[in-house]
């Protein structure tokens, strides 16, 4: 069912929630989990923010470490308390009956408002039967609602662990399209693939042709797949007037085994040295990346 120690996560979340809501509210939440019909569960899920409020959750570093060791990649930083409480509530469902467990959660999606969708998609990495939610996750990527997309794309380990290559590539491409913080995509480097590198290169060409700016982080997915076809792209940004684009080119070449790319990097001793000392990384590029006009 669960692919991680769920009791550990549930207990840390319970501690965090207790610290962030009043005793009355916590008691109300606990009462909701003793025994409940689906209708009661749905109602509790919908009206949780009325009880918990919507303040940003506070928690200790120790609690964060406990969560990370129990469920790596499950990051709750910046979450509001209602979002966290909803995820906790979902973890109270009995997962032993696979079909009814799936239906109860799946039925929440079509009637969900924005913040409910955010909570639901945030819960994917801690739900039972991870393989069962891949279609739902792919459907979420089709959303046009910014916060919902961000809940799926950023600081969420579920997609990189479970999505097919096609759905994963769609997520990354859409993240660029909708200008999400790319460096917060969990597993981005691990799941780079040749198909994605090609699609992103085409995307960059379209943007250039339209005279529209391109995010330099796009080349993060290209490094391992530089070949004779996309090497001219790398050359183009290596000689860009924009410093961040030149840095992106250097980093892409650093990741590459394609010898013309290695030669290109060797021409720029300064950037190469910065990469070697760790001064220049994709994280530092992310920190200053803006869209670069051609």
């Amino acid at each position, binding site marked *: 069912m669960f692919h991680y120690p769920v009791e550990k996560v549930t207990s840390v979340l319970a501690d965090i929630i207790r610290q962030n809501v009043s005793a009355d509210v916590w008691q109300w939440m606990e009462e909701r989990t003793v025994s409940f019909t689906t*209708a009661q569960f*749905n*109602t509790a899920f*919908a*009206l949780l*923010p*009325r009880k918990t409020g919507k303040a940003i959750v506070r928690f200790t570093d120790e609690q964060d470490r406990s969560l990370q060791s129990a469920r790596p990649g499950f990051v709750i930083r*910046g979450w509001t308390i*209602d979002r966290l409480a909803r995820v906790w509530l979902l973890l109270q469902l009995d997962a032993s009956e696979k079909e009814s467990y799936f239906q109860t959660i799946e039925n929440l999606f*079509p*009637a*969900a*408002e*924005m*913040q*409910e*969708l955010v909570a639901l998609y945030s819960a994917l990495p801690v739900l039972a039967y991870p393989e069962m939610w891949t279609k739902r996750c792919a459907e979420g990527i089709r959303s*046009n*609602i*910014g*916060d919902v997309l*961000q809940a799926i794309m950023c600081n969420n380990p579920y997609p990189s662990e479970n999505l097919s290559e096609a759905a994963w590539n769609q997520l990354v491409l859409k993240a660029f399209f909708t*200008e*999400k*913080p*790319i460096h917060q995509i969990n597993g981005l480097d691990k799941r780079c693939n040749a198909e994605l590198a090609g699609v992103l290169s085409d995307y960059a060409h379209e943007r250039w042709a339209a*005279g529209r*700016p391109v*995010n330099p982080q796009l080349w993060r997915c290209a490094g391992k797949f530089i070949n004779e076809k996309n090497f001219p792209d790398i050359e183009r940004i290596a000689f860009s007037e924009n410093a961040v684009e030149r840095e992106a080119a250097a980093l892409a070449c650093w990741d590459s085994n394609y010898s013309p790319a290695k030669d290109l990097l060797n021409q720029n001793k300064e950037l190469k040295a910065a990469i070697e000392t760790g001064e220049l990384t994709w994280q530092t590029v*992310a*920190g200053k*990346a*803006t*869209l670069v006009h051609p």
Partner: protein
Amino acid sequence: MQERTAVPFNRESIKGMTFFDPHVHMTSRTTDDYQAMADAGVVGLIEPAFWLGQPRTGVASFRDYYSSLVGWERFRSSQFGIKHYCTIGLNSREANNEALAEQVMEILPLFIYKEGVVGVGEIGFDDQTAAEEKYYRLQLDLAKEASLPVQIHTPHRDKKRGTTRSMDIALEQGLDPYMVIVDHNNEETVKEVLDRGFWAAFTIYPFTKMGNERMVEIVKHYGTERIMINSAADWGISDPLAVPKTAALMKERGIPEEAIRLVTYQNAITAFAQSGQINEADFAAVTQIDQSQKFEGNTVLRGGQQPRVDKDSMIIR
């Protein structure tokens, strides 16, 4: 046709004022309207659930509609810096399809407890049939149970009697009149509504409902207590700037600024905030949240706001 003289909308006179439109059907409006509303000072609005101009044939259409009111439309609004609330209910016209109405009643509880749902509405009478009355009463019960305000649509035809009857029934079902907003009032209905302790909303809507010159006279006569105005802009010939325009007209005709603030902003918020779902701080947060959470310095496009298009430019990029 009456002779009409054009008086330009003097935006300068209401500069810096903020407005709240407690009845506007944004689903049927364009992004141009959102931009114009934001520019004119509208910071929040309520979109009541209503019919779509033609009857729906299945419960899934209702579910998708309610879901869009708390989902896509709310998001669309936030992109223009306007906080979007809604009321959820089965409108009177479609209450007449009883087989469908039964199914809709079943899904309503899924939506009325949602965040940002500030009431049950718009409900009431259209044709004043038995079926309309049945589902009106059932939804009043629902609102009472959920401690939500009720937004009542009063009928176009046989308005005065329909309004009286709507209030009678609300009291029979045990609702506190202070939790009930009676909408689409006119000179004929306002006195009774106020006397009985209900909120009186006025829809500034050309040709068929109130004009704003008449509205100025109403405020002069009845004052501001429990009075609010809205645009009820929808897919008909209507004006999403009705609230700020009426504010400008009131100012020009000597109504004090505090009185204008009450009928174009505060009273609606006071009435619907009884739901516990309106926080004025959210009006400011619509843009701030987007800025801090969505982009984190990664793009030139800030604030989750739609880039503005220069409508006067022939070039489109």
